[in-house]
């Protein structure tokens, strides 16, 4: 009878709390969005499943190992604990993913038209105005946000998953679940969020602007650009060096042409392995205590605002640049400055085609699109630096 009791007491039904059931529904919801709606499935499938695992009553996926006084392990830790502490707390997984993203990035369109970097800068207004929104909510006691939390929430506006995870795991690890879910969800929603804003901020004539064909970029330029970027980062903003350093390393491996087998593994086996574990590890922070509160609603709301402001700022910046330059820019590509590579560039292309079926903006939009990645990594570096000193 003791055994029946043991089994019953250890069963999920005997231990389950309402919060866990709710979080499992959140996990199932994320899986639904990822699988049926195609919301960034590469990350949301592992995050959703990790949410399920982390909320199984009594399974202990997120428990740390226990050692006796002599240092012997008396109880091994749970899978998600090891993943989180080895890969996320240390920052390794986001950095390795950034290396892989770098190895998949083509800076050609950006090099052909470098001033589109400014569009990538402008879109980061979304990040910082969201920070302001979060501190306002915190200041007036509406939600419990510190300056560290505000920075982590703002970075959602960077529309860049690994950057958001890197910053949040350093500044506000308890918000990691909500921030990562918001970042990936809104990235998936870019085709719904951006077009109305883009249309509202531009005239038909502006949307019809046809841009000059991009010049051919030489292989040497593509090789030297990541090194140029790294050196600038090194001397001006070392706090952005972890993210941008690995990004440039991946890109150099791709472009230099002599380490193709390393570049190939970086873009495939390595980034896939790390993506699986990163997603599961983020899931481990999706516990009821951390997720089921008004702060999460605030994060989701602020994240949406961040995307909208970033989109608008990119478009406005493009319009401003057109005032000073005779090579006109179609302001729709400014919206691609939020990053969300390559979705935002495709959206710019699609809205452009609506205005003029002969106007292909895709390659033009890739410039601000990758500029947005650089821009939010820079914003991440400066926020980590400033917030740590506050």
């Amino acid at each position, binding site marked *: 009878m003791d055994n029946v009791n043991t089994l019953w007491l250890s069963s999920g039904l005997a231990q389950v709390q309402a919060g866990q059931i709710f979080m499992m529904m959140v996990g199932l919801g994320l899986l639904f969005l990822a699988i049926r709606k195609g919301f960034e499935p590469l990350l949301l499938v592992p995050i959703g499943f990790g949410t399920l695992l982390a909320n199984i009553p009594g399974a202990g996926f997120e428990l740390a190992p226990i050692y006796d006084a002599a240092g012997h392990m008396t109880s091994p830790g749970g899978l998600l604990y090891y993943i989180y502490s080895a890969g996320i707390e240390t920052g390794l997984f986001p950095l390795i993913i950034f290396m892989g993203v770098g190895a998949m990035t083509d800076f050609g369109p950006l090099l052909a038209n*470098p001033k589109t970097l400014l569009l990538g800068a402008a879109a980061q207004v979304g990040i*910082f105005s969201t*920070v302001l929104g979060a501190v*306002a909510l915190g200041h007036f006691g509406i939600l419990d946000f510190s*300056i560290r939390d505000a920075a982590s929430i703002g970075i959602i506006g960077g529309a860049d998953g690994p950057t958001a995870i890197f910053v949040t795991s350093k500044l506000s690890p308890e918000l990691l679940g909500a921030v990562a879910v918001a970042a990936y969800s809104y990235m998936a929603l870019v085709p719904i969020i951006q077009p109305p804003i883009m249309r509202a901020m531009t005239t038909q004539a502006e949307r019809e602007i046809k841009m000059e064909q991009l010049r051919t970029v030489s292989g040497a330029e593509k090789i030297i*650009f990541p090194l*140029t970027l790294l050196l600038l980062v090194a001397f001006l903003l070392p706090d952005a060096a972890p993210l941008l350093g690995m990004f440039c390393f991946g890109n150099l491996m791709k472009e230099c042409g002599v380490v193709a087998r390393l570049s190939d593994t970086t873009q495939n086996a390595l980034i896939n392995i790390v993506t699986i574990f990163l997603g599961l590890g983020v899931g481990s922070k999706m516990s009821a205590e951390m997720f089921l509160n008004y702060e999460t609603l605030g994060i989701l709301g602020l994240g949406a605002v961040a995307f909208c402001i970033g989109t608008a700022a990119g478009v406005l910046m493009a319009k401003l640049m057109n005032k000073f330059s005779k090579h006109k820019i179609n302001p729709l590509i400014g919206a691609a400055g939020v990053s969300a590579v390559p979705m935002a560039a495709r959206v710019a292309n699609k809205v452009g085609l609506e205005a003029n079926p002969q106007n292909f903006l895709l390659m033009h939009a890739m410039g601000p699109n990758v500029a947005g990645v650089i821009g939010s990594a820079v914003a991440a570096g*400066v926020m980590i630096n*400033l917030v740590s000193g506050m």
Partner: protein
Amino acid sequence: MQDTLIDQGLNLMLFGMGTVFVFLTILVFATILMSTLVNRFTPATKVEQAPSQAPPIAANSPLTVSPHIVSAIEKAVAAHRQR
């Protein structure tokens, strides 16, 4: 710092956004300078060098498939033919 939360947020906005703009503006000029220098110094040697330098870069994408896969592919193609 004993600023209020709002002050901290404003500071972060001001200096953060400023840094982003300053950094990316410098990067614009650095990139233009880099491209100019690269294209000034390579054209001279371009006529002869272009063909010799282009291949390793152009060869990039096929090379990302390791040689034994390529040979396996060729075998598969050959096998497929014989059917």
